[in-house]
Each structure stands twice: as structure tokens, then as C-alpha cells.
């Protein structure tokens, strides 16, 4: 039988607010344990939560970007359960009335088509602290620095049909939250985390199979692997006559397997009820419009503009708009390169991205600025250097040897375009290789390349290749 996977994702994006969602403590990552937890985060008696307005604005931004309904009135609820890193014994979240309602996100599939994925809701909540099981003999350490960090939980419809689609959705959302400036997207630090609900059904059926929830998927690669593994597990189970049980499974990246954490029967009764310490959250039309006015150009619009304004192929436009920083870099490069859009695209996606990847650097940390890269492209464009020499210049620029003009000057890499000089080198090459000349003239014309190589070598790569070709052909054929 042919099976169809059905996947929905719950993504937790940590909002990039300076302070926590219900207290004034800092959200900065990496501080000494428990140094960024105030009385409210510690859940001391008598203290009360006060909502961080910035977190609300960030949630509204996402709502608008997903073309979703932003609720005029939403409600914070308490999700009650005991755990040592949950100081109050309840998590403040949104349950029945979330701040962001139904919306959607379009993803690009590998076959070049676009698929619309429904977003069910997005709600604000606070993060818990961390339990540290290592380094404490027979005890558990509790770090409450993370307690109260604002999260936006974004829940998709079960519209995804493969692990690849799930990853494409997750990447698109990752790009979007970073465009919006609402989340730093740092997956190592847990700023962008994913749980996946996975089920399978016979292809063609419209009902859903029983789902399992996969937890702890903290990289794109793990999402793909864990989902694929879970799909296989479920299919095998059903084909062997078994039944999928509704449960929560934890993904173990080391073993590339999922294992059961708890079944539906063991699930907590969270006893949700509206938090009486917080008034219902009111978001006015005028606030929504104010925030709409502050929205940056979003990835889809930017991609369309790159295709139209720069004449880029869809693929290039997609790559270059994957992050706001890369897109900004690209546009700055084009400007500095006097509008050489395609050349700039090739260099940003090729040489620069390659070097960044190799060095493990972000575009924002590039040692070569967009202005300098643009400067280099100008020198290619005005034929001061060839494309090949440009790669050497780029390397020197990467190593901090100055901008393109400085490197070209100091290394004497200026292209030779003096026809007389080139002719002399051509004559020399022909004279030095009589055998090849004979063969060429006997019809083995692909030896042209050999002669071009000889001339370029003699010029130290600096001769204008077009002129070399031209003159060689004239002299060889002559």
C-alpha cells in the first residue's frame, strides 16, 4: 500500500525582547545560572506578572506577516503542572483565545511550485527554566535565567506531506521571524525550536491516522531525519498489524531514533483557566495599523522585486532573499557595482558564500564589505582585471590586504590590454611551439586553447583573454 505522511509543526520562537515577558529581568543568553531571575521569575509569594508590551508588538508583527487575524482581545491562561524548573507551578500561556488566529505561509517546493501551508494560531507564553542533571552529585541543578523568556508558539495546520516540506516550512518561518526582527533564530541557543506531529494514512484517504508528537527537534537536519524515521516506524508498525498510539516521543539525535516519553493516558491534566493576575489582552485596530506601518519588506515581496528589478532567475532571487542580511548585502553590492545585478548575484552566491561557509561565518561577519565587493566587480566590468584574476584579488581582500584597487595596484594585477604587448607575447608563444603550430594549421584547431594558456602564463594571467584570443586566432589562421 502507498502511504501518505501528514505532518503539522509547533514552532517555539523566542522573542527578541530585552526583558522577560512578565518581568523586568534581562533575557540575554549565557549568563551565570540564576543571575537573571528576579522575584517574579522565581515565583516568590506575592509578586505579580506584568505583560511586556514589546512581546505583544512582536506577536502582532508575525500575525500580519502571516496574513492572519490579530485578535482584538486575547486571554492569558495558566497551564498547571509541577516541575522543578517551573517556579510558579504553572506556565502562563494562551489557550482558548490566542493573540494570532488563522493565517498562512507559502513555501517553495523542490519542483519549483509553491504550496500554501495553513497556520492555525500563534500564541504568547513564557518559557520555563532549565534542569541541569550533570555536575550535581545525586541532585539536579535549576537555572531559572530562561524562566519567563517570551515565546511565540506558532502552530501549523497538518498540511505538510513530507519531511522535506516540513523543513521548507520551518526554514521559511525561520527566515520570516528574522526578517521581522522578532527572533534571533539561533537554534543552538534554543531560540527557534520545533515539535512535530506526525501521522500516516493510506494515500487518497482524507481522515487522519493517530499521531505521535516528536519533541526536541533543534536543527533543520534533525527535523528531517526524525520525521522520516517516525514515518517509517509508523508504516512498519501498521504493516506488521500494529497500531500507532497517541504519544509524545523524544528524538535522540545520537541514535537517530525516537522513543516514547509518555502516552495519552499518562498526559498531564493541565487544568487551564484564565490567569486572574492578568487582564485580557486588548490589541486595538490603531495599534495593528501602527505595527503594519513598521513592517519591513517581507521575503516573498523582496524575492519578487529581485526578479523584476534585477532580472534575476527565481532561484537566485530565492537564495539571495533567504535572509534579510544577505539580501541587504546583495543590494549594497549591486549599488557599489554600478548596477551589475547578475554579476553581483554570481559573486555573492558563489565566491563570497563559499568563503563564508568555509570559514563558518555569517554574512554580517564577512571580512569583505558589500562596498568593497562592489568595487571589485567594477574592476571586472571595466576590464581592469579578468574574472580569473578577480578571484585572486578577492582572496587578498578576504585576507585583509585592502580594497580591490589597492590589491590590484600593489600586486601589479592590472590587466594588459595593450595590443602591441599582447601581440609580442603571442608571437613569442607561436615561435616557441612550432610543432603545435603545425598541428593547428593541419586542422587541430582546438590547440587554440593551448596557445591561449601559453600567452596567459607568459603574462602572469594579466593579459586580456578576449584580446589574446582574437590576436592568436588572427595570427594562427593567418
Amino acid at each position, binding site marked *: 500500500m502507498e502511504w501518505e505522511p501528514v505532518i503539522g509543526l509547533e514552532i517555539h520562537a523566542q522573542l527578541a525582547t530585552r526583558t522577560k515577558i512578565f518581568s523586568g529581568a534581562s533575557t540575554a543568553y549565557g549568563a551565570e545560572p540564576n543571575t537573571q531571575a528576579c*522575584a517574579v521569575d*522565581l*515565583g*516568590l*509569594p*506575592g*509578586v*505579580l*506578572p*506584568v*505583560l511586556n508590551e514589546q512581546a505583544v508588538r512582536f506577536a502582532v508583527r508575525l500575525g500580519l506577516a502571516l496574513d492572519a487575524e490579530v485578535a482584538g482581545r486575547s486571554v492569558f491562561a*495558566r497551564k*498547571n503542572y*509541577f516541575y*522543578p524548573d517551573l*517556579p*510558579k*507551578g*504553572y506556565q502562563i500561556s494562551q489557550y482558548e483565545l490566542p493573540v494570532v488566529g488563522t493565517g498562512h505561509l507559502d513555501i517553495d517546493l523542490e519542483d519549483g511550485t509553491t504550496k500554501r501551508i495553513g497556520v492555525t494560531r500563534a500564541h504568547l507564553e513564557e518559557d520555563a527554566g532549565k534542569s541541569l542533571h550533570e555536575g550535581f552529585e545525586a541532585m539536579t541543578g*535549576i537555572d531559572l535565567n530562561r524562566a519567563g523568556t517570551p515565546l511565540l508558539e506558532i502552530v501549523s495546520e497538518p498540511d505538510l506531506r513530507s519531511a522535506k516540506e516540513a523543513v521548507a516550512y520551518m526554514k521559511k518561518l525561520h527566515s520570516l521571524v528574522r526578517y521581522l526582527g522578532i527572533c534571533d533564530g539561533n537554534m543552538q541557543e534554543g531560540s527557534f525550536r520545533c515539535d512535530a506531529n506526525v501521522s500516516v494514512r493510506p494515500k487518497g484517504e482524507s481522515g487522519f491516522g493517530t499521531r505521535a508528537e516528536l519533541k526536541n527537534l533543534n536543527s533543520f537536519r534533525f527535523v528531517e531525519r526524525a520525521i522520516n524515521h517516525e514515518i517509517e516506524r509508523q508504516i512498519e508498525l501498521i504493516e506488521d498489524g500494529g497500531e500507532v498510539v497517541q504519544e509524545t516521543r523524544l528524538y535522540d539525535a545520537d541514535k537517530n531514533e525516537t522513543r516514547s516519553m509518555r502516552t495519552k493516558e499518562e498526559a498531564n*491534566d493541565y*487544568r*487551564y*483557566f484564565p490567569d*486572574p*493576575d*492578568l*487582564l485580557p489582552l486588548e490589541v486595538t485596530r490603531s495599534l495593528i495599523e501602527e505595527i503594519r506601518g513598521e513592517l519591513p519588506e517581507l521575503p516573498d515581496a523582496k524575492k519578487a522585486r529581485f526578479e523584476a528589478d534585477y532580472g534575476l532567475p527565481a532561484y537566485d532571487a530565492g537564495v539571495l532573499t533567504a535572509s534579510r542580511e544577505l539580501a541587504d548585502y546583495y543590494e549594497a553590492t549591486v549599488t557599489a557595482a554600478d548596477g551589475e545585478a547578475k554579476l553581483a548575484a554570481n559573486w555573492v552566491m558563489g565566491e563570497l558564500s563559499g568563503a563564508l561557509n568555509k570559514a563558518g561565518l555569517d554574512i554580517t561577519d564577512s571580512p569583505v564589505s558589500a562596498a568593497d565587493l562592489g568595487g571589485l566587480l567594477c574592476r571586472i566590468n571595466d576590464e581592469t582585471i579578468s574574472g580569473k584574476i578577480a578571484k585572486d584579488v578577492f582572496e587578498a581582500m578576504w585576507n585583509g590586504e585592502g580594497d580591490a584597487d589597492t590589491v590590484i595596484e600593489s600586486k601589479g594585477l592590472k590587466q594588459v590590454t595593450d595590443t602591441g604587448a599582447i601581440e609580442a607575447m603571442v608571437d613569442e608563444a607561436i615561435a616557441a611551439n612550432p610543432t603545435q603550430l603545425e598541428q593547428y594549421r593541419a586542422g587541430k584547431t582546438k590547440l587554440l586553447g593551448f596557445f591561449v594558456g601559453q600567452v596567459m602564463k607568459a603574462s602572469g594571467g594579466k593579459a586580456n583573454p578576449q584580446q589574446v584570443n582574437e590576436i592568436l586566432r588572427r595570427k594562427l589562421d593567418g
Partner: protein
Amino acid sequence: MHEYSITELAAGLERGDFTSRELTGHYLERIRRHDGTLNSFISVTEEAALARAEAADARRARGEAGPLTGVPIAHKDIFCTDGVRTSCGSRMLDNFIAPYDAHVVERLDEAGAVMLGKTNMDEFAMGSSNETSFYGPVSNPWDTAAVPGGSSGGSAAAVAARLTPAATGTDTGGSIRQPASMCGISGLKPTYGRVSRYGMVAFASSLDQGGPMARSAEDLAVLLGAMAGFDHRDSTSVQREVPDYRATLGDDIRGLRIGLPAEYFGEGLDAGVRAAIDEAVAALRAEGAEITEVSLPNTHLAVPVYYVIAPAEASSNLSRFDGVRFGYRCEDPRGLEDLYTRSRGEGFGDEVKRRIMVGTYALSAGYYDAYYLKAQQVRRMIRDDFTRAFEDVDVILGPVAPTPAFDIGEKADDPVQMYLSDIYTLAVNLAGLPGLSVPAGFANGRPVGMQLIGNYFDEARLLNVGHRFQQATDWHTRAPGDFA
């Protein structure tokens, strides 16, 4: 000195009749002498009080005195006090010292009040007799065999016995008004949101409200003026100007429409209480008030609604007492589950555990709609009763409690009978309205309180009516003989 009102104390301090150091020393001496009998204080902060009194004297000498500068006060042990234990009447917090002051404590500090100590209370404010305290029951100064009421029983007893001129209390279902009534003092539960809940250990967040307890409406006006006001740390605190409550105390009440709810004078009301209230009504009529009857038809639902909502919120509010970060922790836990169950099992008393269980049940999947959600719907009906009544009257008047103070131990084993002693006060919390209790006589030798219920933020009018009543009567000046 201990017979003076707050206004008189402030005047005496200003004239130099006595210093705050002397006044504070006098009250501390009275506490030493009498509190062995009453048990109204959990902590007495003698040294800090004397130091603050000296600072208050210095402030007054510099001409910077406010209305409460140098006036002693006691705080219910539910208000967090920086550096001083806040037990909430529970073994769970017997070792808890907050690193912050409650907003109410801050405000009264700023106004110059001198804290004498922290008063006894029912554990986590859950009780109507002060018998659930980990620190033992409090005796009623009028009859030491009787309870002082609860949960602010320590505050009420201390004020009644002249161990402090004033105290703070909290009122979730009557916990200021009922003990005020039973101890023959005045107590005000403000409108929900009028006084910040920051730093007040939560029992039921949508019902809790702090307020003043003192001997007269006039004193309450001074205290409320200092306590009330917006606090950005409490999202339910209301941004609204605080009126000068003293300015309108003496206003004429001729033509004031006072409504008597038939439901507050029915079955279960003690005849002696009824007689005292009837007499009080006559006194107000003599002052020119128009007395009419009103109806609050859903009154009988207040007890069941309250005993779903308050425990539900409490079950969640008290989850933080888990033995992990502060408070009581059991000896040698054998794992997490054991740490939780024994810390909570040993740290909480029976009444608290009962309410946590009731509340947990009411919020559970499958029961939520039938209990919590239904209770919230009925709560709106109760509030609507008052809204309708206030279309016809300015103030609603009735008894505070159906009986005067009962004996210690009399109802301790019968939670339902105990819960019924708040039958006239619970609805006010459910609706979020202000309620005032003033002494109105005696029944069987024990004090009886009259309750005045106002519309939202109408505290000034309640205090005005209470003050006019106290100008016409002298119940509030009576002191229990053994503590005169």
C-alpha cells in the same frame, strides 16, 4: 495614649504631647502585657519599630511629617515585608523572609507609619475564625473563649485590644469585615483594584483585596488614603485618582438612599444581630437617610460560587509552594515526587489542603465546565444583582455576619457551618465592590457589625455614612474591659 484615634495621635505628636518613640514603646509594652492571652501577633519587630519611631520623630522635627508619621501600625502576616518573616500563618512559610515590601507596606512606610509587627491570621487567609493558623488560634478580646473571626483575626483582635491603633488586613470573602465585626472595630474592603496586591501573598487573585482595619471610619479614611493608588506592578490595579477620603466624612446624608436586601435578613440571622442592625438602621434614618428594601435574588448562590472560584484560584496560586526554592522542605526527600508530596503534605494545614483539593477538582478536565465555568457565569449574575440594586439606592446595608463571634472550637470540625459565617460578605468580593464594617452594638455580650456596601470606587461615600453613624453612636468607642 492607646485610646486616641489616628487623627488624635497625629495631633498629639505634632503638639509634642508625646513622641513616636514613647507612643511606640507604649504599644510594644501593651503587646508584651496582653498578647500572651490573645496571640494576635506572629512577629513583633520591637527594635525596628523603635528605630523607625525615632526616625519619625526626627522627620517631624524637620517639619516633614505626613498624616501617619510616627503612628504605629501592624501588618497582617500576608503582606511581604523586606527582611522580616512573612509566614502567611503557615508552616510552609515559617522560614520565609521576602526580599521586598508589599506595595501597601511601602505606601504606609512612606506615609510615616511605624510597623510594630505582623499579625496572626488563618493559614493563607483560608478561614473565618483564625483557627487554621500554624501559630495557633487568636482569642477575641471581648471574650477570650470566642474566636476573633478571620482570616484577619490577629489584626482585628490587636486593634480591638488597643495593642495597635491600626492594622492592615486582606479580604477575599469577608476576611476584613467579618473579624472587624466580631471584634467591634471598623474595617474596609476596598473596590477590587483600588489597592495594589503586589507583595500580598495570593489566595484567590480575582477576589483578594487589601484594606485598613482601625477603630473608626475616620481612621480608615486616613489609612485608605495612604494605601490606595495605582501600582504598575499589579496589572489589576486601577489607574484612578485617589480622593481625599477625609474631606467628605462629615457630609450630610439627608436623602441618601439606603437599601436593605431582604435576602440578608432571612433565615439563619441571629435575633440579637438582627436587633442591633435594626437599631442601626433607625439611627441612620434619624440622620435623614431614606431606607428602602432592595433585592439581591442570587445571594443564596454566593457561597457555592465562592467555594468553587476561590479554591480553584488557590489551587494554582499555592502550587509555587513546592519545597524547591523557598519555604518548608521535608527532611531527606527520596526523589522529586517525595519532595513534593511530603513538603506540601507537611507544610500545609488541613483547611488549605481541603481547598487545594476542591480547587484542583473544579478545574480538572471533564469538570471545568460544570464547576469553574458555571461558577463564573453565576458570578456575573451576582454582580448584575448589585448593578440593578444600585440603580435605586446609593448604599446597601445589612449585617456583616449572621451571628456574633462563636466559641473557639465550635465550628472547627464543620467546614460548611464555618463557610456560612461569610454568607453576607462573599458576594461583595465576587462582584468586586467595596464593603465597610462598623460596630453596631452587641449580642450576647459579643460585638455586632453593620455592613455598608457601596458601588464601585464609592469608598468615600461608605466612609461618610460610617462616620456619620459613628458621630451618632458610640459603639466604636467601646473597649473590651480586660484591655482598657
